[in-house]
């Protein structure tokens, strides 16, 4: 498969801009996505993720800047780009009135397969995706997990060089989410480049090799998972103590032992320590174990303990100094704009 261009990049954008009225939904985005990898685009609702994907998939015309997919300009050579990409949108991109089989045969025919070949490939895909039983049912009767599957199946009818997955697991239960992740891994293992947008840090962490964090239409951080984590921190330890009077003492201990940023919670017995990823080679779990030891030696009783990955909120706090909620008004505004654009 000729996925390699001279630069080895599947996607290259420079100063990409899209405005809807007064709102700059995408405000100068630069991306360089290496071919053959999963590239994560992480950001809250309305950050401009979907708008960016739509421009790259030739569905929206950029208002400024340039974007190339495998070296082809998304505006001037849209047809070339369309021949190499597939899109799985935020909402199932299949016809809900048709059955699973009909959807796949329809798209197979549109991709140039003969009647026989389209039927055969649909049958094989439905089987591989565990949808054989539901093949004759209308997609509107599918569960969320099944919809995602048929949607991804439709995207790989012809193995694409680049697959856009726009929030593929939003609204799925944890089990279905894991299954979608497995599918994505299988697709990438065959050499397809995947651009994955997500609101969940752990999803990007699980799948992507490089991650761009975007907020209000701008890339605010970009790098490998390791680089990103180093800037954000490895996670947080949440503690509940038996005795509220010991909280200050505990906080002091944690700061010394972990070099952590410790924050008291509204609950007088609770506190959160944000672990710094750069300070130590140890994993978050090792750091947390050390902290518990220190507390036990000082005679502080811990009733409840949990270790969490950094949340999207924490990422944003670390990168922008504001959390995702502060931009609530903006977000709603942009969401509306996105809807209009869709």
């Amino acid at each position, binding site marked *: 498969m000729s996925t390699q261009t001279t630069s080895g990049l599947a996607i290259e954008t420079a100063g990409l801009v899209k405005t809807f009225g007064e709102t700059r939904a995408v405000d100068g985005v630069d991306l360089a996505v290496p071919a053959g990898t999963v590239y994560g685009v992480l950001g809250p609702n309305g950050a401009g993720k979907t708008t960016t994907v739509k421009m790259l998939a030739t569905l929206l015309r950029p208002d400024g800047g340039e974007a190339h997919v495998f070296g082809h300009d998304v505006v001037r050579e849209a047809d070339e780009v369309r021949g190499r990409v597939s899109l799985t949108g935020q909402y199932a991109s*299949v016809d809900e009135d048709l059955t699973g089989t009909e959807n796949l045969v329809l798209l197979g025919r549109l991709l*140039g397969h003969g009647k026989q070949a389209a039927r055969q490939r649909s049958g094989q895909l439905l089987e591989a995706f565990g949808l054989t039983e539901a093949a004759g049912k209308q997609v509107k009767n599918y569960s969320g997990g099944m919809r995602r599957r048929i949607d991804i199946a439709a995207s790989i009818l012809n193995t694409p060089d680049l697959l856009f997955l726009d929030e593929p697991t939003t609204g799925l239960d944890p089990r279905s989410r894991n299954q979608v992740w497995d599918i994505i891994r299988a697709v990438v293992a065959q050499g397809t480049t995947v651009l994955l947008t997500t609101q969940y840090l752990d999803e990007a962490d699980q799948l992507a090799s490089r991650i761009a964090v975007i907020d209000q239409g701008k890339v605010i951080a970009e790098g490998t998972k390791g680089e990103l984590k180093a800037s954000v921190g490895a996670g947080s330890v949440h503690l509940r103590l038996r005795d509220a009077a010991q909280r200050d003492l505990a906080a002091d201990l944690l700061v010394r032992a972990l070099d952590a940023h410790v924050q008291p919670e509204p609950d007088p017995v609770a506190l959160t320590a944000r672990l710094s990823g750069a300070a130590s080679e140890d994993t978050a779990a090792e750091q947390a174990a050390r902290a518990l030891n220190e507390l036990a030696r000082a005679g502080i009783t811990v009733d409840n303990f949990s270790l969490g990955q950094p949340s999207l909120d924490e990422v944003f706090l670390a990168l922008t100094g504001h959390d995702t909620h502060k931009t609530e008004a903006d977000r709603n505004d942009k969401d509306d704009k996105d809807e209009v654009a869709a």
Partner: protein
Amino acid sequence: MSTVTQTESRELAPVSAESLAALLVAGERPPRPSAWSASMTFGWRAILKIKHVPEQLFDVTAFPIMMVLMYTYLFGGALAGSPKEYIQFLLPGILVMSVVMITMYTGVSVNTDIEKGVFDRFRSLPIWRPSTMVGYLLGDALRYTIASIVMLTVGIILGYRPDGGVGGVLAGIALLVVFSFAFSWIWTMFGLMLRSEKSVMGVSMMVIFPLTFLSNVFVDPSTMPGWLQAFVNNSPITHLSSAVRGLMAGDWPADEVAWSLGWAGLFVLVFGPITMRLYNRK
């Protein structure tokens, strides 16, 4: 509903990574489909939709029957002495009027579709761009044919006897379907241009009512005031209904057929490119 969904997700078979991998590797990329083949595939989609939601044939069955019955008995006695006399004149005209009215549902279905995710997928496919729209119209052409057959059947039951025989009737229906296909590009344009289904409906009514009623469908235009005659005699609907009336009566109204096809060509040339511009910009 919820119970069904739950059982399904619980029993959902696991994804087979091996067979998936084999499929991804084996997938050769066939040459792109021709414009014709892509359009026909979209036409097939329209037919599948009719199969799954047969209620949508209501507007091409019940509505045309109602039109024939209503106007035959409402005007028949007053305008031609008896309904049986009048239907000889009325049927080809009411056929034209009803089918042209039915074309406006094209805009509504385009408008409801663009709200859905599947439209984005179609637009990101490497296919001849107008084929999505042509597909709608091909599906609709089938609906127009059904409506025509239904109305003719009712007409014949009520006493309509076309002198043109089977050949004349088929030629009339063919001309009507071709014209409607071309005329529908107005609706694909409105379907893509307007924001909601309701506004598409509203605008369509504003266009379709004056256009179909201000014609020679019901009466000879010579009794109308001069300024109205000027409009009616040049209306595409008048040309079309004269042509269909002539063909079904066994004449060969070459002028009127030429006028109808000319208008049809004009509609495609004007509204086709506008539709495609909107489609690409959407």
